[in-house]
């Protein structure tokens, strides 16, 4: 089920509360019983759907009997990693790393890795030597035991190793102290690590506080870094190094389960033959819930009625399996395994068994993280289906979820769920799309239309209940719909190359695949930084986290003066404007000036340096030159950009399409990662914020833009920089100048200026705008040319108002205007067009769907404080019919109608578009004109004409047509309804017509002379409507995939939804009017 969740963007994780389990399985057994022996917890159960039985149909290809486990090397593509703390035979706790993956042949693997100990560092006092270590160890251990209390008796020998090592801190260049002493402390479990670190930091050990290093890094990431293992890499266990897991069948749900000591495991760098991916299995799912009218489904009240599953293999587009689990009977669906149940708990269990039997590596769907999966878990808990929450690859591990807070700059903080489904990566396509794309709406409808270029049938949940309550055929109808919704996310994943791109991002940044979605952006840089630092003997200090200013939502972007732009000289430029761009500006600044934690010199240390050894940034911060010490960030960036060059080169050479996609995914991942490094240094709530670096970067950037402007204007007399953005300047080389010439000058200027900047800073000329409409800061549009023969596209920045509370009319008019201005270069045409639209709007000729605004009801109506149109409308609709009124989570579409009195506020005049269509309610055209169209259009036209307000006044605004409310509605209910003459609109006097012996009531006696003309006119309208009716309703049948069933779709995002409704009414009226022309002889 696709429920709109609040539309958010730029997720950034702010905090992850440790204990926040939601589903409570109060009387679930401590250990999950073993399945395979039949399901005994409900009478009349369907024993056939055990995991074993389902494996027969849906299982992975069997491991060949010839495979001698342990004796030959085991090679697999790792997809997920986690760790579990276990108590060993000697009574010690230890953290076992678990690596999950798939072999090249598609067999699933669980690899338990023993012996890797968590460790961290503290700065050692200068006078420490080896002799102190043992007493330090004892002091730490005893303090830990004291603080842990009785239940932590394992803490008695928690500290396994303490050693003195020589390292450096990554922070600051210290002229005198190259190489410092640090104590490396190894413990048995990550929890002990945290405990030890906190005690040391807070001064509980040896009565002194210690500075911590490398202590906050996740255990799994630490392991991966030390093994040089990146996300989604191929892992090899040499022959003889590993052993089959004893009792594998009892402990794991994978086909191959082995144990290995951590030293033996090797990971291949993801290049050449290790670029490929194993045949990963993807399970896409969608659930439908029984709905009560007007109420969002609640897991303790509303049943799960269907679960549809679509199984595919990565790289293959055809479905491997399709299955649907239904409550109550369901007629057969060709090509789909249909399993029907009388008992909902059995249904859930069968789905769970199916999931284990299919054994997917990736679980996907649309909004499954915040709807489908939590609903299933909560519902199972409510039904006490205690064997349900075991969906992962570890047999006895209960699937758990917890809330985590994600915050974004635009929408504040939101809760999201995180799941522990061992060995399976949850990749919710809604989260992927929210992270990667900025859209007007994130409903599955809009997303499908945006990326798959098709409209999705949308069945409202009130109809879902009706279908469920019907017979096996209506439920089949529902199942087909549900299957489609399970298939769409998989298609989106394929189309957007989500898995490919995320795999490459995991490989490039070195983090496990699932972290990319479940954790914030910064973890990628953390991984990169630690990987590089570890290799060169640097330690990352763990600074106390700054408490984010509460409620601020953790906007983690830099908080200081950002990149200023050169003031735009607004206007409509009809000559070519060259754009000079700095390629990868921020990364290249960091490299050029060696800006890094490890090169930053504290002010007190500066005087000890020779002047030629450092540079001072425009803000006064000092960084040593690479000749003294090369910054680690520079090294990271160099490697990323170098790899990107290689990836781009390989991509150009690649012939296989899949390989091309992978390499493209990689080069994009590398670019994203390079840009993230700057953001990491500036993230105030991040792990290692360093404003000296980030502020210096932007300061250098501003300086370079200024320098470019001055240089260009002095190099080319008559040239003028009309605008400068963060990393580009727009140059007008002259008033009357050809495009070819501008392109040549642009290339020349870029090359000349590049020589003035330190490498690798590079100014590039790649494009010119011609013509160019500059409106204001960050708002411009133009035709973009990269070669003089043909323009590439129309490029708009900050104009096409994607604001969610706008109606479609705005975006459509704006884009049509821009096309007229830029492509046709027809200013008068654009003005005429706007006037026409304004006039049509006032005459009520604009299609209603263009005027619809929709907003999601995100909380109960009562909980809204501010008066909002959609909330007000919901209240109104509830009074009208409680049953069909929108409920929580529903999108509420509305239009603004004319008020009964002058002082009705706009929000009070929101009305249901369908109601408006059916009753002919007059639209408040003036509202749309003033509040929707005026501002964006005036903004554009202010660059083109002197008095843009003329667009909204004048002759074309005089003709106003207000729809008369339909007879029988509202105020006209009691007025006598009189026919109007089709010709002159005068009232028809039927008695007079009869006296004159005239039949038919279409025309008054006066208009009879022109009867054929009026008939033709009326007929013409009717014929147009017939064609429209036909085109619209057959389109819906085609989209729905059925012609014998009624169209039920209620997808208000679809451009034809309201048209389809309107034409029914219009054509009925047209036919009625035609019938008034007498057909008597």
């Amino acid at each position, binding site marked *: 089920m696709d429920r709109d969740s609040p539309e958010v963007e730029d997720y950034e994780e702010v905090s992850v509360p440790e204990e926040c389990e939601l589903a409570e399985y109060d009387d679930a057994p401590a250990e999950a019983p073993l399945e395979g022996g039949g399901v005994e917890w409900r009478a009349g159960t369907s024993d056939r759907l055990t995991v074993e039985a389902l494996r027969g149909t849906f299982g992975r290809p069997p491991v060949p009997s010839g495979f001698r486990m342990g004796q030959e090397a085991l090679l697999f593509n790792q997809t997920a990693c986690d760790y579990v703390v276990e108590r060993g035979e000697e009574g010690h706790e230890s953290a076992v790393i678990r690596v999950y993956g798939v072999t090249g042949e598609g067999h699933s693997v669980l690899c338990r890795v023993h012996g890797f100990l968590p460790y961290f560092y503290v700065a050692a006092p200068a006078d420490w030597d080896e002799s102190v270590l043992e007493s330090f160890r004892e002091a730490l251990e005893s303090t830990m035991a004291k603080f842990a209390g009785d239940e932590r008796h394992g803490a008695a020998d928690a500290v396994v190793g303490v050693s003195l090592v020589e390292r450096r801190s990554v922070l600051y260049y210290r002229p005198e102290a190259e190489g410092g002493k640090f104590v490396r402390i190894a413990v048995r479990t990550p929890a002990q690590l945290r405990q030890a670190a906190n005690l040391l930091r807070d001064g509980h050990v040896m009565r002194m506080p210690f500075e911590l290093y490398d202590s906050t890094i996740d255990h799994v990431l630490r392991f991966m870094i030390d093994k040089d293992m990146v996300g989604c890499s191929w892992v090899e266990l040499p022959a003889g190094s590993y052993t089959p897991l004893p009792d594998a069948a009892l402990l794991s749900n994978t086909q191959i389960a082995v144990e290995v000591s951590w030293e033996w495991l090797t990971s291949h760098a993801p290049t050449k033959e290790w670029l490929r991916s194993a045949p990963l299995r993807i399970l896409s799912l969608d659930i439908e819930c029984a709905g009560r009218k007007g109420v969002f489904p609640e897991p303790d009240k509303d049943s799960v009625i269907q679960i549809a599953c679509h199984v595919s293999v990565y790289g293959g587009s055809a479905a491997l399996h399709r299955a649907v689990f239904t409550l109550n009977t369901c007629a057969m669906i060709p090509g789909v395994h249909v399993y029907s149940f009388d008992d909902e708990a059995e249904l859930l269990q069968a789905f769970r068994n199916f999931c284990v039997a299919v054994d997917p590596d990736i679980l996907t769907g649309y909004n499954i993280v915040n709807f489908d999966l939590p609903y299933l878990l909560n519902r199972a808990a409510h039904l006490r289906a205690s064997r349900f929450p075991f969906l992962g690859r570890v047999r006895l591990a209960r699937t758990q979820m917890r809330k985590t807070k994600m915050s974004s700059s635009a929408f504040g903080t939101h809760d999201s769920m995180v799941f522990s489904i061992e060995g399976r990566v949850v990749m919710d396509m809604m989260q992927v799309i929210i992270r990667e794309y900025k859209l007007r709406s994130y409903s599955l409808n809009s997303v499908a239309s945006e990326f798959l270029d098709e409209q999705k049938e949308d069945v409202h949940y009130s109809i879902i209940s009706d279908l469920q309550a019907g017979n096996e055929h209506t439920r089949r109808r529902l199942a087909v719909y549900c299957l489609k919704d399970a298939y769409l996310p998989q298609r989106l994943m394929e189309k957007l190359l989500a898995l490919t791109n995320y795999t490459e991002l995991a490989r490039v940044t070195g983090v496990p695949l699932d972290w990319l979605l479940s954790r914030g952006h910064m973890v990628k840089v953390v991984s990169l930084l630690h990987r590089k630092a570890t290799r060169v003997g640097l330690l990352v200090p763990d600074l106390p986290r700054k408490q984010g200013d509460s409620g601020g939502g953790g906007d983690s972007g830099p908080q200081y003066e950002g990149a200023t732009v050169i003031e735009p000289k607004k206007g409509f430029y009809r000559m070519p404007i060259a754009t000079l761009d700095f390629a990868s500006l921020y990364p290249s600044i960091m490299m050029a000036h060696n800006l890094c934690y490890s090169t930053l010199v504290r002010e007190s240390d500066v005087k000890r340096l020779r002047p030629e050894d450092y540079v001072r940034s425009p803000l006064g911060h000092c960084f040593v030159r690479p000749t003294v010490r090369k910054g680690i960030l520079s090294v990271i960036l160099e490697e990323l950009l170098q790899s990107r060059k290689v990836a781009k080169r390989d991509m150009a050479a690649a012939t296989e399409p899949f390989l091309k996609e992978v390499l493209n995914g990689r080069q994009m991942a590398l670019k994203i990662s390079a840009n993230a490094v700057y953001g990491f240094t500036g993230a105030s709530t991040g792990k290692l914020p360093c404003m000296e670096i980030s502020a210096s970067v932007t300061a250098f950037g501003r300086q370079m833009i200024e320098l470019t402007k001055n240089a260009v204007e002095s190099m080319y007399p008559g040239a003028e920089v009309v605008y400068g953005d963060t990393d580009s300047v727009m140059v007008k080389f002259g008033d009357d100048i050809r495009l070819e010439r501008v392109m040549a000058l642009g290339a020349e200027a870029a090359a000349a200026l590049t020589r003035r900047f330190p490498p690798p800073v590079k100014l590039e000329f790649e494009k010119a705008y011609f013509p160019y409409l500059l409106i204001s800061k960050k708002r411009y549009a133009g035709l973009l040319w990269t070669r003089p023969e043909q323009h590439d596209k129309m490029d708009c920045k900050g104009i096409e108002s994607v604001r969610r509370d706008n109606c479609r009319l705005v975006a459509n008019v704006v884009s049509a205007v821009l096309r007229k201005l830029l492509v046709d270069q027809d200013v008068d045409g654009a003005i005429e067009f706007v006037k026409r639209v304004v006039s049509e709007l006032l005459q009520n000729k604009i299609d209603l769907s263009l005027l619809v605004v929709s907003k999601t009801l995100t909380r109960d109506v009562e909980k809204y404080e501010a008066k909002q149109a959609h909330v007000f409308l919901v209240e109104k609709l509830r009074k009208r019919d409680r049953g069909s009124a929108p409920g929580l989570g529903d999108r509420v579409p509305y239009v603004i109608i004319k008020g009964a009195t002058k002082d009705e506020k706009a929000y009070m005049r929101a009305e249901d578009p369908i109601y408006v269509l059916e009753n002919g309610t007059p639209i408040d055209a003036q509202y749309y004109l003033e509040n929707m169209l005026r501002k964006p259009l005036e903004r554009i036209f202010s660059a083109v004409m002197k008095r843009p307000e003329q667009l909204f006044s004048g002759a074309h605004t005089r003709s106003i047509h207000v729809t008369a409310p339909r007879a029988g509605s509202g105020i006209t209910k009691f007025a006598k309804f009189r026919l109007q003459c089709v010709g002159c609109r005068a009232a028809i006097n039927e008695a007079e017509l009869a006296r004159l012996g005239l039949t038919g009531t279409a025309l008054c006696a006066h208009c009879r002379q022109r009867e*054929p003309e009026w008939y033709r006119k009326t007929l013409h309208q009717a014929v147009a409507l017939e064609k429209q009716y036909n085109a619209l*309703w057959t*389109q819906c049948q085609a989209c729905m995939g059925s012609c014998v069933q009624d169209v039920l779709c209620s997808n208000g995002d679809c451009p034809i939804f309201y048209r389809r409704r309107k034409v*029914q009414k219009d054509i009925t009226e047209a*036919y009625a009017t035609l019938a008034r022309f007498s057909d008597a002889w």
Partner: protein
Amino acid sequence: MATDENGRVAGTVTQRAHAAYTNDDAECGFVEAEGDGAVPNFFQQYSQTYFCRLAEVRRFFQQAAPDAYVSLSEVPTGTASTVIGVIYKQMPLKPSVLREYAGDVMLPVPEVKRANYVSDEDRVFIEDETGRTELCLASAGDKDGLVSGVVMAVRGTQMEDGRLRVEELRYPPTAPLPPPPPSTTLPKSADGSVDTEPLYACFLSDIDPTAARAQLLLDYLTGNLGIDLPRVRRIARVVIAGNIGDSDAADAFLANLAASVPVDLLPGDRDPVRSAWPQRPFHRILLPRAATPGKTALTRCSNPHTFTLHGRRFLGTSGQNVDNLMRFSRVTSTTEALHRLLRYRHVAPTAPDTLVCQPVWRRDPLLIRHLPQVFFSGNADAFAAQTVSLPLPSAISSTDAAAMDTAAPAECASVLLLSVPRYAASGAAVLLDLQTLQVQLLRVDDLP
């Protein structure tokens, strides 16, 4: 006698031969029965149209073999079974109103009309009330003649991927012959013997009434030309299969013609009538003179139009059905299209999918319930006529229903398929001898 503007007396032919005629449009539901005034309910969706069509054709199938069929939801895996359903052809090239609106809603661009919308990416589905399944046809050629909206029986086996591997596609049983006319209507000559001389119906379509050629034809048919009078006298009725327009010239042309000879006027795709099938007859307002009762013998007919003339049953259209079938299939000849329509038992199966029609509630009026003897369509690029023979229901055994193409069944009915050319372009009309069902081309340009 009517006169035209020039005071010229029209209809100089006296003793025009008579042929008994009944208009069966209302009986077939092409026009609403009088007084009923049934306005189509547009709040009714097209699903009901398909539903009625499927249910009725299924009965046709089941009359021959009541128990031979299963619904799509009952198709067993592994063994062959037979289902009856509506064919739906998914065609990427098919015009889409969504595509039209997807671009710029403010300035929608209607899609370019193509001569043919078939592509190799077309997929064929069969659907009944219980679901829709894709067909896996034995050869690509099998889908060439198929169009959306036809009801067929398919024998096949369910495949792993859910598609139905087709072993056999079956047409519905042929429509039964109409009951014989109540009395023998064959005209007798004065001496009481059966008149065996040729007796003609003249078929025309697409007339430009302002063209000289049209005047020539008018003068010929009314006898004003004074030539070929013995034959002209034997033309008992003129059928105009669409497209004459509603100009004054058209009104005059029809008034003059119908004053001399009975005329059936079908509306065509460019005529001013409602476009939804069945198309309503011309409104009298548009033809004030030609439609004057008592003065002319003009029958304003629906499209499609069905009538009985000289004891022969006719069914025909002004050609949009044939044109549409040919655009959405690989059928290339109009007679083959007509033949297929007869076998599909539907005048216009592509309605509503690609041909505009009214939604119906109880009964699909466009189904062919009785076999005509002449099945015609107008506005063809070229004249064509072909007599085909179809097995009558009683002659079809339940097992070899599909064999009708190859083996000659015991009892057959012949139907004349007649493709009426555009007169404006070709200058040709068709004379059909009602006695023998022989056809000849009448070219006014070639007259002596």
